[in-house]
């Protein structure tokens, strides 16, 4: 048998090796944040673009030097919110079905199938949306829909994409409600529906909110699927749900291939990246806040 390393050295080796792994990850994240901030802030500090007009300007025409990101911000928020509105009832309904109505079928058949939806690549959703959703928009709304590309199409595609995330997390949330709560309610003669509505949903509310936020995070950051169906009009504010529009992510993707490193157009794209980064941090902060509030309530 080979000579064994003394235990203490072995423990130090383990600590060092795993510690280095996590340090590396942390370092990469810090580098990313610093780099995005540096490039993104250069627009304002170096190129002299006014921050306020960047946020509130209604025209994103980089080749003319007009950097008003408001249409993109509005686009991002409207597809995110709208897709959440579409996905939430379906996700919540499915979750209630899985946990309260048919746990056997739900756990063994339904949930694995829904999780398959997570795996479908976003470009595939995009292709599908382009040929199905946009065509449906044209068929339903006729002339008003134009090519069918627009905020509504984007939101529908996104709703399908975030559906599995929200469903799975909602299932976990409802599952975590102690059974005694349900039994107590049934013992009082309440029906299943009353129990779900008054007892289960109420006590699972913080975790359900977390599920929704995580779904929104995914919708907000989704890129290629949205890009294919939303139309990619960045120049001006969208005026309706059927109008072609753009989001922060799609403007980034379409702009990045043309912009030269160091130019004001390039920096402006990083500013969009910085906005996306900031939004992710906001989402995380909200989740933490919900968690803390939930803990306080319970404690």
């Amino acid at each position, binding site marked *: *048998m080979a*000579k*064994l390393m003394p*235990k*203490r050295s072995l*423990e130090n080796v383990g600590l060092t090796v795993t510690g280095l792994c996590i340090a590396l990850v942390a370092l990469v994240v810090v580098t990313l944040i610093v780099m995005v901030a540096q490039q993104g802030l250069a627009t304002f500090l170096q190129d002299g673009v006014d921050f306020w007009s960047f946020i509130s300007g209604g025209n994103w025409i980089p080749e003319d030097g007009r950097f008003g990101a408001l249409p993109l911000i509005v686009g991002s928020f409207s597809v995110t919110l709208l897709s959440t509105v579409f996905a939430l009832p379906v996700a919540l309904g499915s979750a209630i079905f899985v946990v309260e109505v048919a746990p056997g079928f739900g756990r063994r058949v339904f949930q694995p199938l829904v999780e398959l939806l997570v795996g479908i690549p976003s470009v595939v959703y995009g292709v599908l949306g382009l040929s199905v959703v946009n065509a449906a928009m044209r068929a339903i709304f006729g002339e008003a829909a134009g090519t069918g590309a627009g905020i509504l199409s984007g939101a529908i595609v996104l709703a399908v994409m975030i559906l599995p995330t929200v469903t799975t997390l909602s299932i976990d949330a409802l599952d975590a409600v102690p059974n005694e709560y349900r039994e107590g309610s049934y013992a009082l003669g309440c029906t299943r529906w009353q129990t779900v509505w008054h007892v289960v949903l109420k006590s699972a509310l913080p975790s359900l909110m977390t599920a929704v936020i995580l779904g929104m995070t995914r919708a907000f950051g989704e890129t290629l699927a949205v890009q294919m169906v939303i139309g990619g009009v960045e120049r001006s504010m969208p005026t309706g749900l059927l109008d072609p529009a753009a989001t922060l992510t799609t403007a980034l993707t379409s702009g990045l291939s043309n912009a030269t490193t160091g130019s004001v157009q390039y920096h402006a794209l990083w500013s969009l990246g910085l906005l996306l980064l900031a939004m992710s941090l906001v989402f995380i902060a909200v989740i933490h806040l919900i968690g803390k509030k939930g803990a306080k309530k319970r404690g």
Partner: protein
Amino acid sequence: MSDTTQNEALLTTRNVTVTYDLTHEALHKTDLTFKGGEVTALIGPSGCGKSTFLRCLNLMNREIPKCRVGGEIFYHGRNINTKTENLFELRKSIGMVFQQPTPFRKSIRENILFAPKKHGRLHGKDEEDELVETSLKQAALWDEVKDKLKQSAHALSGGQQQRLCIARTLAMKPDVILYDEPCSALDPISTFTIEETIRSIAEAGAGICQIIVTHNMEQAGRVSDRTAFFYMGDMVETGTTQQIFSAPKDQRLSDYLTGRFG
């Protein structure tokens, strides 16, 4: 076995206190002495600090975040409750058996050999075979499993699993074995065999000091030579098991023994 003789004080604690979360004191200044060859039972109602005390003796409390152990613990006359104490060396000679049987997901044989191998103690197959056989015999499990040593330890019954854990501990050749409510997850018959095993280890004359935490007073009466009674984080009374059960001095102890609480 170790070269300690009967009746030498192997473990002595002085002013041992334990605090969790930096504020909650779970154990208050405890002085006890444990001798080789003896079985000591730690009894008391749940939450009285007996398990917490037991986990001080092999410094397992160090694995719990925000848990502080104060006072001195002398093992072979040396204070082990210090920052520089080598936990790994110490735990080789102070074994522990837990409440739930904890066989690893390995074969019966590998369960016994796992730790000695990792400590670099074994050389060659003959030594391994011998260790497996003697440990299993000491734990009164050999006859039941000798034909299926290569099978998964998880296929054994609960009582057998617990005896395997005792055998695994014995294979480390410790001079102290700590039992943390070893029978609370077992049926009466398995409990009986575990008690038999503990007695036979005590009477084998190897000078192993055994300390067992139990909430079962009858069990304490059956297996132990000495008993210590814990109540609300205090070690209230200690003495020979016979004296504790027949002539308790402290009112709380006699109340406990007569079933007024706990």
